[in-house]
């Protein structure tokens, strides 16, 4: 089996596992993690296409590689937004329950020296 095909199959596996994770898990953090797995699989698929499109002395087609770089940054932004939502929700829940959340409640953080 050729290298790209192997990675292509790994990408398919990542996509399947990730999709199942997103659909089956109820905890938001795991869902976001699983979404990232699907994303990694999809990016890898672009990479396989790029590798197979190697030409003109390049190790791979630069267009899909550039798309993946854009995609990775977008996926990071998505993860960040999701994490911010999750943390905010945790703070509100903790406030509603009347117990300050460890590491989440800002007031609990010790004052820091500034140099």
């Amino acid at each position, binding site marked *: 089996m050729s290298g790209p095909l192997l990675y292509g199959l790994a990408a398919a596996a990542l996509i399947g596992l990730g999709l199942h994770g997103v659909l089956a898990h109820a905890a*938001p953090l795991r869902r976001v993690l699983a979404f990232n797995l699907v994303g990694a699989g999809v*990016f890898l698929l672009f990479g396989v296409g790029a590798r197979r499109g190697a030409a003109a002395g390049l190790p791979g087609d*630069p267009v899909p590689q550039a798309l993946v770089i854009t995609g990775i940054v977008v996926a990071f932004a998505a993860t960040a937004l999701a994490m*911010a939502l999750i943390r905010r929700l945790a703070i509100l829940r903790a406030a509603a329950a009347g117990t300050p959340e460890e590491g989440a409640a800002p007031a609990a953080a010790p004052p820091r020296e500034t*140099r």
Partner: protein
Amino acid sequence: MNATLDAVLALMLPVMALFSLNARDERSAVIGFMALGLLLALAWVRLGAVDVALTEAAIGALTGVLLLGAASAAVSVAVPRTGSPLLRGLLALAAALVAAGVAVIVAGAPDPAPSLAAAAVAHLGALELGNPVTAVLLAYRALDTLLETVVVLLALIGVWSLAGEGEWRGAPAAPGGTASRPVVLLARLLPPVGLVVAVHLLWVGADAPGGKFQAATLIAAMWLLVLMAGLRAPPELGGARLRGLIAAGPAVFIAIGLAGFLVPGQFLAYPEGWAKAAIIVIEVALTASLAAMLALIVLGPGTGERRT
């Protein structure tokens, strides 16, 4: 030899994914995911995409910080798993079908694949660039890159909008809870090295693997490390200089793009002989903005802490 390496790597990817998905606690899941990110970076090198490998490795670290930060908070949000066994079976079946379909498509896809490599290389001379990926990102598909920085900015605004009322212009909480002595040591040793590497990545990006995303991520990571160690306080989000830094990158990009209307007569076209200069200006401005935005996204919304 290489085939074995590919086989092992390709096998390790789904194994790590399975571990990460089924780990007992959130923290292990996140650590498994970070390990998967490193394996992916290796896979990208094997696929001849060093630019992507660098991006994956760099962004992977930031994602790890984000996820670990949320992992501790997430426990209280956890909802019991719902759904009937039938539904869960159906979901598993659907996911398996998609995976199988993708596998069939990959196996049957044309090899060699249709490619724009030749076309991308053909215009490198006119752009005075040596790295075709940079040419794609900043010339052929520059609009994607421009809008993608807008995506990051929107994400940042989204994160800021999650602050409590009246706190949103204040400083965010320092990351990582409490700092220990080794972290302080690391935060003193590493940033100079990291900055040199970042500048190097940015500088060679025109001709070799590297560029603004990788450099920006590295700078953001160094800044976060300094904040984690408590060597500096997180900045106030309402600060004029910080806001100016954030807006400068996309603004410079748009300004040079609009200037293209005047000189070559096309949006985002670079005047002849000035292409490389224009691209470097854009890259430097974007690196600074992206570094600030990426770090601020990780830091999260303001908490109303005021610096004295």
